[in-house]
């Protein structure tokens, strides 16, 4: 089986004139279909740079990156954009939904930029389907301002899913959410992963990383540990525990 993501000795050097910043210093990494990997590290460890590279938003200075067997180092700006559109889904810390645009229209967005013209009816059907997956089909005509943080992030996940990507990239998807909503969102990721979608997420929090199957820790631009998660948290179980705790709290009070 060939990996979905194959990175070999990737370096990234930012050259801002006088100072050269060596953000990533030789990373080799294989990611197979169905994996769910947490990318951890302190700020400045190079994880964001690696994430941007994985997301085809940036090209490595040296080394090779094969995404679904396509060598991205030979692609220009527009070809990278097409690749992002077809093979990648993005979820951001700040949700990054278009304001004053309905949830449905937000989810439709990536389809507007596909190479193939999608008829508006099909666009709506696919967007509705993805909203259904994240459990928000009844909020399709709501604006982001009318949704809670967790709901907004789920809309963002639906948007990332709409073009059936090879890899879902999430940059601190729970960073702006409270712990209960975080568990809820992790539940969505786990459900998607169970259906076979490959997920990579950047996170600071160990307990969030525990929901993943694999943990990659970076420091100073290098991988310092790459281990499978031994005692994986399951969102469903966690959710139940939280509900019970809440119920108990009410009993005591």
């Amino acid at each position, binding site marked *: 089986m060939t990996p979905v993501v194959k990175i070999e000795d990737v370096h990234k050097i930012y050259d801002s004139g006088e100072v050269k910043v060596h953000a990533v210093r030789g990373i080799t990494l294989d990611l197979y279909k169905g994996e769910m990997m947490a990318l951890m590290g302190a700020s400045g460890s190079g994880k964001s740079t690696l994430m*941007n590279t994985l*997301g085809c*938003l*940036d090209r490595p200075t040296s080394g090779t990156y094969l995404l679904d067997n396509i060598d991205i180092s030979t692609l220009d*700006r*527009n070809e990278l*954009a*097409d690749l*992002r*559109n*077809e093979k990648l889904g*993005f979820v*951001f810390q700040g949700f*990054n939904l*278009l*304001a*004053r*645009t309905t949830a449905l*229209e937000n989810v439709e*967005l*990536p389809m*507007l*930029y*596909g190479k193939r*013209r999608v008829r508006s009816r099909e666009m709506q059907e696919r967007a509705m389907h993805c909203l259904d997956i994240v459990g928000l089909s009844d909020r399709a005509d709501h604006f982001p301002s009318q949704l809670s943080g967790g709901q907004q992030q789920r809309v963002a996940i639906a*948007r990332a899913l709409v*073009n059936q990507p090879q890899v879902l990239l999430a940059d601190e998807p729970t960073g702006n959410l409270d712990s209960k909503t975080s568990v809820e969102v992790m539940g969505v990721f786990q459900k998607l992963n169970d259906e076979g979608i490959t997920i990579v997420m950047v996170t600071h929090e160990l307990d969030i990383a525990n929901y993943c199957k694999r943990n990659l820790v970076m420091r100073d631009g290098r991988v310092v540990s790459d281990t499978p998660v031994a005692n994986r948290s399951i969102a469903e179980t966690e959710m139940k525990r939280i509900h019970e705790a809440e119920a108990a709290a009410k009993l005591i009070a």
Partner: protein
Amino acid sequence: MHIGSTVTVSFRALRRNAMRSILTALGIIIGVGAVIAMVSIGNGAKSMVEAQIAALGQNVLLIFSGSVNQGGARSGSFGAGTLTIEDADAIQREITTAIAISPEVRTSAQILANGLNWSTQILGEGADYLNIREWPLSDGTMFSDADVRGVGKVCIIGQTIVTQLYPDISPIGQTLRIRNQPFKVVGVLAAKGLSVQGTDQDDLVIVPYTSAMKRVAKQTMLRSINVQAGNADLIERTQNDIISLLRQRHRTTEQTDDFTVRNQQEIADAANATSNTMTLLLGAIAGVSLIVGGIGIMNIMLVSVTERTREIGIRLAVGAHGKEIQLQFLTEAVVLSAFGGTIGILVGIGASELLSRLNHWPTLVSATAVAVAFLFSAAVGMIFGYYPARKASLLDPIDALRYE
């Protein structure tokens, strides 16, 4: 991405900021509206001037008695009067391309009739005058050549005279006293209304020029001679023939000419030049407001690009090409300005309609002005939208996503 999707995206973006979009378009609305209203006023004035000049008659030449030099002191135009009845007769006799001529004398006089009196202009003319001017009678007949030869005491009157002196009875056959000389009214002219200068063209009495000279003005010289050429092609030849005939008779040269010959085209050209200048001036002033509107669009688009940097980042991240971002913002600018242009056209047409109703100004909305104003407003959107759109398209997706 496809044009259809781009337009969809642009419309969604504009709708999201409906109030701002409308205010931005307002600049263009006012610009286009002003251009159309101003050009309509200019064109209206022009068409009115043209109508007035056409009212002079077809293929008409006017010979004015000019300045005369008496011992070094030169009189102005019409000053001394240098044209004589003999000159008129000579033109009639020798210029074969002139099909009708009417010598003219003008004076003003107090007139009495029906127990009422009125001061008006008295025109002495030949029997062909009304044919040359293409001025129909509403009642009665024109006096004849015999009346002219016989220094007849007959006259035709304008509508204003009818209202002032004959409010209740038909003027035909009535007696009108001009400087105490009784004249019989034989015809009434059709109403002509105000001239471009605002004078009442119906406030006049026309008598045979011979009568005007001998009985009213007591003068021997003609003020001018109206000549009608056979057709448009003969105007120039007729003009030249008249000039050389009069030079011969008056023993003058180009430098010492005591008469002026003008043809209708020259008068029309002069008048048109004036109204064209006015139209151009009004249009240019209005055009400035269109450019100001365009700068407004550019300003808002620049604000919009900065404000929507994150949005641009998202679009780039999910696969938008730089060109598509550029097209989106350009389309927004063009949609804004074209929308403004369309509303502006309606406003402009409405404004010119209103002006002509309220102020009785003649206005004429020209299709060319509408088309040019619309295309110009779209071009304004294109030109002023280009820079912000280009700026947006060159953003780096990572920077744009991180933008706070």
